[in-house]
């Protein structure tokens, strides 16, 4: 497993923990807005860049750079599609001129951030795996 793959797996673990924390807070408090505090766990992603073990860049060569670029493009594409779709859904649900409750807006920021990171991490692993699997099959 390359550093980039470990980096993506670490992100997925943090994202899963974040989702679990939000779910647990929602169950415990019963208040959707309060449960958003669980998204603070996303800050754990910063550890990889600042800890003693994480000082080495996860990007080790030009192929890693290409994979990260493609994964970022994929994640932002998915994000904008979902963002626009959410805007359309809210417009249809509340009609023009009506106030949209904040409970429908605030989570969108956090969920959007979560989505970008999740798609990016999955795309990194998928793009890495694609070429590795093909090479193994070819070697048989």
């Amino acid at each position, binding site marked *: 497993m*390359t550093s980039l793959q470990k980096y993506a797996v670490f992100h997925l673990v943090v994202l899963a923990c974040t989702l679990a924390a939000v779910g647990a807070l929602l169950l415990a408090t019963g208040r959707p807005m309060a449960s958003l505090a669980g998204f603070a766990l996303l800050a754990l992603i910063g550890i990889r860049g600042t800890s003693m073990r994480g000082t080495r860049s996860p990007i*080790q*060569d*030009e*192929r*890693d750079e*290409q994979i990260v670029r493609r994964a970022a493009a994929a994640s932002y594409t998915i994000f904008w599609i979902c963002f626009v779709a959410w805007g359309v859904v809210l417009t249809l649900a509340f009609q023009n001129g009506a106030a949209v409750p904040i409970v429908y807006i605030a989570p969108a920021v956090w969920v959007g951030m979560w989505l970008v990171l999740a798609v990016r991490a999955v795309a990194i692993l998928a*793009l*890495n795996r*694609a*070429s*590795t699997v*093909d*090479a*193994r099959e*070819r070697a048989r």
Partner: protein
Amino acid sequence: MKGSPFTNEIRRMRFASGEMTQEELARQVEVTRQTIIALEANRYVPSLLLAIRIAQVFGTTVEKVFILSPKAE
């Protein structure tokens, strides 16, 4: 990364160079082993710098390692 315009002789040249491992070649050209795997599978088009480094490891020229596919010409 699909549909590479190149085929390459890296795998053959590795074995001709004393059965050099992918890991050894990766170390010499300063990339990950996964990149060598992707190159051998024609799933990745290297930069000019990487292509030259690989050719230098095998003591040959870039065009003898990387061959432009007839469709891409």
